């Protein structure tokens, strides 16, 4: 009975650290990066692959729209899985780190959404050209760049505030 009550299970009690996924910090670990972001990498890979597939087929414009919609929606499932793995990573943090990281992610997503809303007028004024096939601002994978940039910027801002 006593043995049943005090069963020792090998358990990792260390909380997750936000610096694990930030290459600028000492805590950065490729293993943690992969554990948290592997679904994001999959979504980016599928998005780029879909863009390449459509671009390098001359008759892609004649493909059924359902097929092109499926290719466009391919990154959706890994993106949803990414949200789940991100949530799991956040839940494994201590209270302060979780608050900071949540604020950083909120900042990154809001700023990217803000940027996305600013793109149509910029396109209208000729500042950006949406005809660029791979660098089309409506691509999934291109969203990863401002998201990552604003995440790194947000980390700097909020870490300084909580110090």
């Amino acid at each position, binding site marked *: 009975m006593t043995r049943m009550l005090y069963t020792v299970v090998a358990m990792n009690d260390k909380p997750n650290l936000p610096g694990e996924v930030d290459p600028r910090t000492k805590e950065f670990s490729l293993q943690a990066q992969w554990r948290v972001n592997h679904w994001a990498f999959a979504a980016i890979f599928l998005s780029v692959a879909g863009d390449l597939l459509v671009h390098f087929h001359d008759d892609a414009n004649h493909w059924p*729209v359902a097929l*092109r*919609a499926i*290719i*466009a*929606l391919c990154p*959706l499932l890994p*993106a949803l899985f990414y*949200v789940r793995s991100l949530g799991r990573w956040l839940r494994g943090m201590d209270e302060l780190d979780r608050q900071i990281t*949540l604020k950083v*992610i*909120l900042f990154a*997503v*809001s700023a*990217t*959404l*803000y940027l*996305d*809303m*600013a*793109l*149509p*007028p910029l396109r*209208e*004024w000729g500042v950006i050209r949406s005809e660029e096939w791979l660098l*089309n601002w*409506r*691509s*999934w994978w291109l*969203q990863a760049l401002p998201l990552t940039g604003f995440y790194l910027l947000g980390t700097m801002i909020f870490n300084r505030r909580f110090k």
Partner: protein
Amino acid sequence: MNNQPNVPDELIMFDKQFSWRTAWNVCRWWLAAFVISAVFDLVLPDWKIHQPLRWRVTIVFAEFFAILLFVFDAVKFIRRMDELQRRITTAAFFFSVSASFFVFVLWLRLEREGFFNVVFGPPFSPFSTTTWGIASVAHACVLLGGFYGLGFLIFKRRYK
């Protein structure tokens, strides 16, 4: 001095505690951004295109400046809440921004493939839009407001 903490339910229209005054204080700039964008991007886009560049730039800057002012008001409103309400509201904001972003990108990607033109035909909006795209500030405001309400209901139930 008013020491009472802010209550997020005052912003939810179908809640008993809804207050027009609080809603106006927090959301006036959100409403301003929505109205400017709705008028110039949805109702009068053809008129806007024929205006000189400086006018178009002014209109766009007005929309985006109004959003920035709304963010400051919202942050001020959240800071004056008690700990629990602040958590619920922050989670609802997080849900709202993430879901809007997701829908935004998904919609734009499908529009790029001509999905909406094939399924629904050419745009039949009375507002002379030439696209099914939802890339205006007015659309984003509606998405953000709708998802905020939904997120608030979800997280309020979770914390009960």
